[in-house]
């Protein structure tokens, strides 16, 4: 026993020397170019049922895509199904829905940092500070909560009950706005939470099935509601709608109905200036000025997509095409002005709208 401890101590000393030596020798070198910096991240859900999600990286420098970066670096799959990606403080947070976890990796090397467990059908991740983040969760599909995450210990501290099926989140003025889609049920609210006290401040009623949320240049919050299907799925019971909320009063400033009982709008994004919003609807991608009071009548891009993103660095729209969901999908970069195709890349299986774009 004594001998063992002695050996252990020796090894510790030797190891620490090695590490010190390594660090020393590393110092004078020119900084290693970060492999996964200067680009955006694409979330691929992975094959239906039994597969694993993957992350693709688009590099602005080489104008090319690298696939399966998490798997390549960490020699293990991410898990089933990758819902969304978020970045804060040099760390990437990948929300894995079915596996009920958030994988945390270093933004530059993509080496795994931690795994946040104990979540219930997590959807999106929103950091508040370097210490704290929220994860929206569907609980059993018919519930709704946010888990409060300690970003130092990567543990769930507490949960806050929200509307049903919470999805994307947005922070404005120390308040968190989370759209509550209803999950497998129905809801039509935006839950507002004080990010300091974690108290629910308000519940704003919007259209049925709110799924997208963005903030414009004037500080207004836009919420895209998809509407819901009738019980027999023959059409929509409630049409999709677009809501504009004044965050200082939490009142609905205006709302526009899509007045279509067949197709649901989805994938709301906003440009860098906060002046133009984009969304998918009825086989096209539409572009609308935030000052407009009526919906645009013609799309700038036609086609059905599984996800949409706006890249502030290039001012391009990125649409994801999931194909048959069991083969590699692709992303297509479009000019956000007129919808011209710039280029397309093959990515992983079932790329969705859970992109992460760096700020301009």
């Amino acid at each position: 026993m004594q001998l063992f401890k002695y050996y252990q101590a020796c090894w510790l000393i030797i190891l620490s020397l090695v590490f010190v030596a390594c660090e020393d020798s590393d110092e004078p070198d020119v900084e290693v170019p970060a492999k996964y910096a200067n680009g955006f991240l694409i979330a691929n859900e992975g094959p239906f049922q039994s597969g694993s999600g993957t992350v693709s990286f688009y590099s602005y420098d080489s104008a090319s895509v690298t696939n399966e970066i998490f798997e390549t670096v960490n020699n293990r799959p991410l898990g089933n199904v990758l819902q969304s990606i978020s970045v804060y403080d040099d760390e990437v947070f990948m929300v894995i829905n079915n596996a009920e976890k958030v994988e945390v990796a270093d933004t530059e090397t993509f080496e795994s940092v931690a795994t946040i467990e104990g979540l219930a059908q997590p959807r999106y991740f929103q950091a508040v500070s370097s210490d704290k983040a929220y994860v929206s969760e569907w609980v059993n599909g018919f519930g709704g909560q946010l888990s409060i995450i300690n970003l130092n210990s990567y543990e769930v501290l507490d949960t806050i009950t929200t509307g049903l099926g919470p999805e994307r989140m947005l922070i404005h003025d120390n308040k968190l706005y989370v759209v509550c889609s209803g999950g497998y049920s129905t809801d039509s609210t935006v839950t507002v939470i004080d990010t300091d006290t974690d108290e629910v401040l308000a519940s704003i009623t919007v259209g049925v099935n709110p799924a997208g949320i963005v903030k414009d240049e004037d500080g207004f919050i836009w919420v895209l509601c998809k509407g819901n299907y009738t019980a027999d799925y023959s059409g929509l019971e409630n049409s999709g709608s677009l809501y504009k909320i004044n965050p200082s009063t939490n009142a609905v400033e205006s709302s526009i109905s899509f007045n279509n009982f067949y197709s649901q709008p989805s994938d709301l994004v906003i440009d860098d200036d906060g002046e133009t919003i984009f969304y998918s609807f009825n086989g096209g991608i539409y572009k609308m000025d935030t000052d407009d009071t009526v919906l645009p009548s013609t799309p700038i891009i036609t086609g059905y997509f599984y996800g949409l993103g706006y890249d502030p660095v290039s001012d391009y729209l990125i649409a994801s095409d999931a194909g048959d969901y069991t083969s590699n999908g692709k992303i297509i970069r479009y000019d956000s002005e007129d919808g011209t195709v710039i280029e397309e890349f093959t990515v992983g299986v079932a790329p969705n709208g859970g992109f992460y774009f760096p700020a301009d």
Partner: protein
Amino acid sequence: MIDLRVKFLFCLICYVVVSLKSYGQQLTKLDSTFLLEAVVVEARRLKEYDAGAQVISIDSSTIKTFEAMSLSEMLTQTMPVFVKTYNPGSLATTSFRGMGAGHTAVLWNGFPIQSPMNGQIDFSLLPGSIVDAVNLQLGGEGALWGSGTVGGTVYLENLPKYNSGLQARINQTLGSFGKYFQGYKLTYGKNKLYTSLNVYRDKADNNFTFNNKAKARSPEEEMQHAAFKEWGVLLENYLKISDYQQLAIRYWHQDTEREIPATLTEGSSSATQDDQFNRFLLSWSGNLNSFDWKLQSGFSLEELLYKNDASGIESLSKSKVFIQEAELNWYPLDHLSFQGGVQHQYVSGTVEDYEDGKQEQQRLALLGGVKFNTQFFESRINLRKEFTEFGNVPLVPTFGVELNPWNFLIVSGKIARSYRLPTFNDLYWKPGGNPDLLPESGWSKEAGIRSNFKLFDIKNQFQFTVFSNKIDNWILWQPGSTYWYPQNIKQVWARGIETSYTVEKRWDKTSFNIIARYHYTKSTNEKHQTEDDPSLGKQLIYTPLHKGNLNFTYNYNDFGITWSQQFTGKTFTTTDNDDSLPAFTTSNLSFQYKLDKKYGYLNLRVSANNLFDEDYEIIAWRPMPGRNYQFSLIISPKLNF
């Protein structure tokens, strides 16, 4: 030197030719013209109309070996067809000749038992202990058996043993991972009566250890939530009304409870599935003068309860199938026979996800056949026309021919149309289900040779088949903007070769046989779903190109040893064939000892499965167990009085 070799070769050839000739005389294909005799054959359609078809029988001693296991294990270990097993004891479906899970029909004494709701059958739910004979027929045979017989058909039969006296058979099998099978069988056969009661119980925890490749450094973990429990009863009664008539009544009940394990890329699972069925079959068969007939009435009631506590899902689905069938054969001449038949099916499916919660269908099918055969030639034409309330089912013919030019050689060919009706889920599932779907249909062609000969006094059998099977209007569930929906959009072309070689030898006390089988199946997607569909021309997912197996059996007196080895080639997991699972080989070894005495027999069997501890997956991220063992004790006293 060369001379010597040539001489030797010449001698060898001479020897082979002579042996072939002498042996061939005994091996001439038995004249299959049915002579009216005091034996009532039930499965006439299968046995009479097989010209040109590729039929593989699993012999009764092999069936006994798998008494404590399921048909999924029996097929996996003995046949080169691909069995898609999710986890041990979990869902297992088959791919015959490169086709999908819904393209294999399973007939229990002529009654189709695949689920009308999804068109599939779970081979894990078919215990090896309930059948006396298993035949596999590869390739389309829609004219004989109707919908779903696209890739192949599995025939399960129960057979009476008149005059076998009173017998009991007790099987106790213990295995790794909490496996415990108990089978109790009591049979009585005398003169005109045979009755059999078979009760079985099976359970396994399936808590095997595996290396979790979904985690860093692949730690060793124990399989969670994969247990299963099953019990069932099969009651058979056969009565010879006269020397030429038989009445058969069969009843089969089974109850299975299973935990559904998570894939390694998911977190955990709390899903369970309970399957229960009652199947009742009444048949009257007989012959008179140059006619024979069979009237059959079958009823099946199935229930499936899926529960998932984590997501609050509890879904109960029920289906009923009621089939009436009449078949008449006429043998006007020695070399000519005719067949006619009619089948009526009533099918219903109840699940809350269907339009109106319950759906019903009635189908009527007419079938006819003609067969002409001589000593050197056999040919048949079969036709079926099915009428349904939806879609138009084409007229389905089969043309089969066999030539027997020399005693040791049979050359065969077959062209058959086959079809599959859309399942209840395809038609009525809400949302997505489409009542306007057409039946899938296509043509399959095959040609082959079979050869039986003796070489150095050893029986040899060689078989080689090439096939091509094209299916159009293949129903595929496609992702829509909000939900998935089925469409008749896929076209699949499967083609390949199948070959086998059997060597068999029997002495006084010793016998051995070696069976080697190899299948090459290229099954590709022939139609693009989108403009630049990356899956066009690519191999279907979970359909291996190469599949082979080798079985070796040696018996000496009361002692037997069986060695089997299965090779499964690489399978693709994505439709663009970008991702795949590696090929794997598993081996099994078993010893058995049989003590046969006047008052009964005792059988001991020890087997090791996956002997070399191969680390493999059949479905991505669903691990399979490493080396595991089974020990069986079978006691069968003869209780004659």
